[in-house]
């Protein structure tokens, strides 16, 4: 199949349409309308709009493009995308990954100016989510999605999204519980003040005591029933499963505090500890909110469904129809365009196509497939549209099978018990032991006080500060890490990060930068004029190798010639002529065919692109993966303390380049399939090694999920990443050792604050056992210990981070 290439291709800076008259300036416009809009946007500092996508203002003009969104007419699809609907208005929300600045918010919230069917648009910036209210009589879902795509904000519509609704990051009822607890805490504290100061007015003592007592009980009941319900339920669940978590001693404290206070007030023997009780719950809930903090807009639990598109063009009786991928069955004929993912295993029907499998195999070089070749789900089509015949349903495809792999599913077996949970059985038993012993001693000394002492011990030993230590330290550490480009799925992840002893790297895209390959020319040196010829030829091709050669030459300031003729032979090479010169660039066989004789190419492994000028072989460009900046240094430091391994889906072309960093070739494994990667990580885990896996693509997904701690490396944190425990911004990979050390040190800070809270507990126990735990002492001691822990952990982590040279402010 041959294809002529348009030589001049100047496009409008606003809408991307071709321009007839070229001007000197950098900016070209197809019409005055576009120019006006451009200046309007630039005057209002909305020019970032143009950085959003490669071709801003993509227009959906031809009918083929329009068909892309045909499936949005489908009732079932609509039902899943629309949150609320009545006869006139409907509400729908979209995830739009392209939202990246305040201008985007402005543009999207003013959509009603572009489509009068839209009534209101609300953007949630952190979640990159747009909620639209629209008039169903004036517009429909498809027009809205098309409009969004036209202005460069294509919604992320995937299978995954259709099947489940997302959860809120911090549930609303947690805020409500905190509000109720805070309200009661403040008011009870106020009513208990006279008691603290011993202000008993002789004549009306009883009336006031009863009045305040009743008010305190009324205020404390919602705290017990509503605010503390999570702790009580969790403790009850733990006990009924014959286990003890930290919620058990907390609940014992809650019940003891409430029961004792209720008894004191009803019997008229004292004022009770309701202030401590409400304050205690209030601080615990603050800790819980800190713990629930998540990174909105980041997604950690993606499976294959979120990678596959919702719909695909199917050919029915010669007509292209947009259908949901789920309905595809064996034997269907489908059409895929440039940059689309193959939804299921198929057989290619077009003459040839180029497929990029980097997504599933990690192999960075796109492969050429010919008519009749099988192609696998997850590959990305590059170049012209291709027809294929479905050979397996979506759920039976290679990619899907990989996901359904047993190993991946069994991740629940990983132990994720936190330090606090591990010590709580001992803590609980010790506290109950002390309570019983002191009760027995007091029975001997003064039996009337024994019950008081017993409850006092339970109250004061309540591990409030203990429960706050980990959330506050890790919460603060997680914030600092996120400022430095390392986003953890949940704050407990830091604890598992601290136990790591083995690190497994993926190669392609992780330690090498797939965007930047090193290009070296092998053969007799090229003259300036040769380079011009090559530059001119490759400039007009869309093949990734041509683009790479072109961009490398562009850096050398090679000027452009205007060729007389250019022809690209798909999957083989490119041929051009300029005056008397003929240029052939491409694969070995392509050059041999055009020169008409065998050529001797270098024996070096790796990918080569061969060059012939005037039917004379000149040499080849060799593509070598380039290591990311700072990776060498990182591996140098890490190998001191950790067992390092390399897994690569790629071939061994970079082995010699990397062997010096991985203690020879034993720890390097090439040509690994995704399931081999998974098995390798599993075999290390079986040897009781705590494995940290760093990977980037879907091919690492199994290994990431099965490792003790999986990190997905991402160039854009807003874009997708496979299921993992943390996402690392690829720019920060070089600082990874510091981030790792910081995580380990924050565990030290937790231990210190555990110690601090135990000191408070022991002090309290002294008061309790000697029978001096007045409500005032409790009211001072309990909030004081909580606040000390909050302040200590926050300052200690920030101080530590500053010492290590990490960013601590946004």
């Amino acid at each position, binding site marked *: 199949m041959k294809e002529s290439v348009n030589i001049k291709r100047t496009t409008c800076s606003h809408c991307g349409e071709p321009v007839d008259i070229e001007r000197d300036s950098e900016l070209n416009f197809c019409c005055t309308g576009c120019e006006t809009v451009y200046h309007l946007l630039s005057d209002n500092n909305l020019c970032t709009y143009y950085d959003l996508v490669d071709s801003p203002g993509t227009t959906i003009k031809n009918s083929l493009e329009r068909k892309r969104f045909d499936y949005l007419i489908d009732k079932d699809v609509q039902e899943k995308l629309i949150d609320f609907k009545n006869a006139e208005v409907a509400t729908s929300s979209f995830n739009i990954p392209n939202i990246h600045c305040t201008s985007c*918010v402005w543009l999207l919230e003013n959509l*009603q100016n572009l489509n009068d069917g839209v*009534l209101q648009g609300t953007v949630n910036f952190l979640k990159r989510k747009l909620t639209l209210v629209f008039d169903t009589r004036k517009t429909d879902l498809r027009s809205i999605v098309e409009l969004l795509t036209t202005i460069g904000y294509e919604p992320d519509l995937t299978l995954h999204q259709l099947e489940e609704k997302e959860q809120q990051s911090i549930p609303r009822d947690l805020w409500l519980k905190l509000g109720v607890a805070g309200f009661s805490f403040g008011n009870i504290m106020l009513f208990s003040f006279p008691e603290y100061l011993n202000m008993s007015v002789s004549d*009306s003592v009883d009336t006031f005591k009863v009045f305040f007592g009743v008010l305190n009980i009324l205020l404390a009941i919602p705290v017990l029933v509503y605010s503390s319900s999570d702790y009580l339920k969790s403790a009850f669940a733990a006990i009924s499963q014959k286990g003890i978590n930290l919620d058990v001693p907390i609940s014992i404290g809650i019940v003891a505090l409430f029961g004792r206070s209720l008894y004191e007030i009803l019997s008229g023997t004292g004022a009770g500890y309701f202030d401590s009780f409400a304050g205690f719950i209030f601080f615990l809930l603050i800790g819980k909110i800190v713990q629930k903090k998540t990174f909105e807009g980041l997604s950690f639990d993606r499976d294959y469904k979120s990678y596959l598109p919702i719909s695909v063009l199917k050919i029915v009786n010669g007509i292209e129809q947009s259908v949901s991928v789920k309905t595809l069955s064996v034997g269907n004929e489908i059409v895929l365009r440039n940059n689309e993912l193959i939804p299921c295993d198929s057989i290619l029907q077009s003459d040839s196509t180029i497929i990029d499998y980097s997504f599933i195999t990690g192999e960075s070089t796109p492969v050429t497939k010919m008519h009749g070749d099988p192609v696998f789900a997850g590959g990305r089509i590059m170049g012209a549209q291709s027809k294929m015949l479905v050979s397996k349903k979506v759920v039976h495809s290679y990619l899907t099978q990989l996901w359904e792999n047993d190993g991946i599913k069994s991740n629940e077996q990983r132990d994720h018990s936190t330090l606090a949970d591990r010590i709580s059985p001992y803590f609980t038993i010790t506290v109950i032991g002390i309570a019983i012993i002191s009760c027995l001693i007091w029975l001997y000394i003064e039996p009337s006080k024994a019950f008081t002492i017993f409850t006092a011990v339970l109250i004061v030993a309540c591990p409030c500060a203990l429960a706050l230590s980990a959330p506050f330290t890790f919460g603060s550490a997680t914030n600092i890490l996120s400022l430095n480009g390392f986003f953890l799925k949940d704050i407990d992840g830091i604890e598992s990060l601290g136990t790591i002893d083995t690190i497994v790297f993926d190669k392609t895209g992780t330690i090498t930068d797939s965007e930047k390959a090193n290009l070296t020319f092998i053969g007799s040196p090229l003259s300036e004029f040769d380079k011009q010829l090559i530059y001119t030829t490759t400039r007009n091709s869309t093949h990734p190798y041509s683009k790479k050669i072109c961009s490398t030459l562009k850096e050398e300031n090679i000027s452009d010639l205007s060729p007389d003729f250019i022809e690209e032979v798909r999957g083989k090479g490119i041929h051009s002529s300029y005056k008397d010169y003929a240029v052939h660039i491409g694969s070995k066989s392509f050059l041999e065919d055009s020169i008409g004789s065998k050529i001797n190419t270098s024996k070096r492994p790796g990918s080569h692109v061969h060059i012939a000028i005037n039917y004379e072989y000149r040499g080849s460009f060799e593509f070598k993966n380039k290591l990311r900046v700072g990776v060498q240094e990182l591996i140098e430091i890490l190998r001191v303390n950790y067992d390092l391994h390399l897994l690569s889906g790629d071939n061994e072309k970079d082995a010699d380049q990397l062997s010096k960093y991985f203690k020879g070739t034993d720890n390097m494994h090439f040509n690994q399939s995704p399931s081999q990667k998974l098995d390798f990580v599993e075999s290390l885990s079986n040897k009781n090694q705590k494995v940290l896996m760093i990977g980037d693509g879907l091919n690492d997904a199994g290994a990431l999920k099965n490792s003790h701690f999986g990190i997905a490396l991402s160039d854009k944190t807003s874009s997708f990443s496979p299921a993992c425990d943390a996402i690392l911004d690829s720019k920060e990979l070089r600082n990874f050792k510091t981030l790792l050390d910081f995580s380990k040190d924050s565990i030290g800070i937790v231990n210190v604050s555990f110690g601090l809270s135990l000191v408070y507990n022991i002090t309290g126990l002294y008061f309790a056992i000697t029978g001096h735990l007045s409500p005032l002492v409790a009211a001072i001691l309990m909030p004081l210990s909580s606040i000390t822990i909050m302040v200590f952990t926050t300052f200690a982590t920030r101080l530590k981070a500053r010492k290590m040279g990490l960013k601590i402010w946004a």
Partner: protein
Amino acid sequence: MGVIFFLILFSISVALIFLAAFIWAVKSGQFDDKYTPSVRILFDEKNSSSNNKTQTSKRDS
């Protein structure tokens, strides 16, 4: 002394109004997104179209 009972009951009912306001704020979703409103307040609204505020349906979940 009776005035103290009145004052306390009055103050507690004022506090209850604030609690109710907080509950309303949470339920209407004001705590779901604590960042975007800070951006939105900076936009000029002079060129907004007329139907801007006429139909706003509330979405509670």
